[in-house]
């Protein structure tokens, strides 16, 4: 379980995050949605230990949180296995080779283990990016827009992997712009706008709050505008 209490982040006079509180249970899939500049990445960065909040607390130690950044944070000149091995060692994983094998199996990249990362497609690179986040088998996994820039086939594979991890008890928290994807793969949604938490509930509850509409995205935009965003 992870809980955030009154998280606030200020950059000078600008408030990127305003007293955001929420919690997520083991195995729960939580989507953080909102327009550009809503504070999604800031929230995930604080949860992942990349940023210190101006005020507020996070219940979980950063070492129990896996982090998957939006851009693939891997070394192009190393092979898939070498990247995984490096981060497993840096994470202090006990059995490095077992962890690497498990990550390769989880992501379906065992056959590409010795390939240099720069030779992989964007989708496969993102799978390695996610695999690195999972190396230490963290109870909580944070992903910043994990499926952006992926084609539908790769996107499907990534979500299958994340759904499996959630089923095995890993808390999945991801930021996305894609409302349909959030509704499909999240158990609960957090709606952020200009650093403020506007909504926390299931996809169905958000649909109810937004109101019946053929175009959910348009209705969501209207929902934000009605609240001054």
């Amino acid at each position: 379980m992870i809980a955030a209490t009154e998280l606030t982040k200020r950059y000078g006079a600008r408030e990127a995050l305003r007293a955001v509180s929420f919690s997520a249970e083991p195995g729960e899939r939580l989507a953080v949605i909102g327009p550009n500049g809503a504070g999604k990445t800031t929230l995930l960065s604080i949860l992942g230990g990349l940023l210190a909040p101006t005020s507020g607390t996070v219940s979980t130690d950063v070492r129990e949180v896996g982090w998957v950044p939006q851009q693939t944070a891997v070394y192009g000149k190393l092979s898939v296995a070498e990247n995984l091995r490096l981060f497993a060692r840096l994470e202090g994983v006990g059995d490095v080779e077992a962890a690497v094998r498990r990550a390769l199996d989880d992501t379906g990249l065992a056959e590409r283990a010795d390939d240099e990362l720069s030779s992989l497609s964007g989708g496969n690179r993102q799978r390695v990016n996610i695999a690195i986040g999972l190396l230490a088998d963290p109870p909580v996994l944070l992903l910043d827009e994990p499926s952006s820039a992926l084609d539908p086939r790769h996107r499907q594979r990534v979500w299958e992997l994340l759904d499996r991890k959630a089923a095995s008890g890993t808390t999945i928290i991801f930021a996305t712009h894609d409302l349909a994807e959030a509704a499909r793969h999240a158990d609960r949604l957090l709606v952020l706008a200009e650093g403020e938490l506007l909504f926390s509930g299931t996809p169905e509850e958000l649909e109810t709050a937004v109101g019946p509409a053929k175009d959910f995205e348009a209705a969501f935009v209207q929902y934000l505008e009605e609240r001054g965003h």
Partner: protein
Amino acid sequence: MSGIRWLLVKDLQILRRSPLLVVLLVAYPVLVALLIGFALSGGPEKPRVAFVNEVPPGEGTFNVGGETRDAADYADRLFEAVEPIRVDTREEAVELVRSGDALGALIIPRDAPERLRSMLGLTGDPKRPTVEVIYNGEDPLKQSFVESTIETQLSRANQALSQEITKVGADYLDIILRGGEIDLFLQKVRVLGLQRAAEVLREVIGTLPDGSPYRDQLRQVERFAQLAVDNLDLSDAILASIAEPVQVKQTVLDGSRTPLDAFAVAIAVTVSLMFVTVLLAAGMLALEREEHAFGRLVRGLVTRSALLAEKMVLSALCAFGLAVALVAALSLFVEISWSSAPGWLAALLLGAVAFGALGVAIGAAAREVRAASLLAFLLSLPIAFLALVPSGSVGPALYDVIQVVSALFPFDPTLEALDRTLNDGGQSIAGPLAHLAVLAVAWGALARVAVRRFG
């Protein structure tokens, strides 16, 4: 420490798989170093000079003190510093200079030996022989170089001839003083000598009666002879001083009496050390951000300080190894003091660490590999240039500014420490090493502040 170890392994793997980068990093400084080394230690190649000897074969001899000399012997001295292109006529020589095939031309006229003979023989109307020098005025630097080379060599030849003449003069004076035989008009002539003349006069005066009017006159002649004997004893030293009236005594006030070629090695190694360390440290740190791995690393896997330290260690070790190999290679050309190896190894190591700190500061400021490399390159060149500006070549105020700026970067203290140890000057390197340690800490701290901006 474990994190630093694995990052080091990772970076070495990346370097191993970037052969172009490795070749550039190694080849460029080595090339620069060797160019500097050879330029300073080897000196310029002998300039090609067209040479016309208008003196017919066999007519170039002259006599000095009964010994026959050949003018060609003195001309050869000129060729110790130039490569002669022998041609037959003045026109050919001028054409060679015009076309650029020769930097200059030297013409010995037909009457040169004759004039020399008339001058040495003090016969008739003695005229000094004149040689003609021709060079292009298109390039002031080239003109100055040729002019100075030929003038220096002519001056040496003149000096050699002057020494010969001085020696002959001294020999003549010795005969006048002590007596002996001289060659005159192809026959030997016996000379009494002033010493013997004085003795003869004394003997003659002794035989004269006390009231003889010749006694006082002969005594005056005897005193003159004795005075000449006493003073002509100094003639050798006086003639030597005429041949070389001014002697030079050199005193070095500051720094060391480092041979130029050994100093060139110190420069070459310092330049290589700087380029490799700064470029590598800056580039590898910027790469962490370019690969977006920085954020992943510093969220608990390694601290920012540890990451900077790893880049400093990586670049310092690589550059240190290269610099040691370079010293070994340059020792084939220039004498290196291996007995002071611990000193120059310490200078190389601490210099590399200080350059590494400068490199990570640049990498942290630039954040992108290309920008970091460019910045490192642009900064390194003027640093090296400023550190090599000699005192007296610019105004005192500007020189003070240059000294202060140079002191802020590791090039100057590294060069100073290397110069002192590579050449076995016996001087302490504690000062430069302490300077490098302070710079390593200062630039490292600056890098730590700058890297806070990394995301």
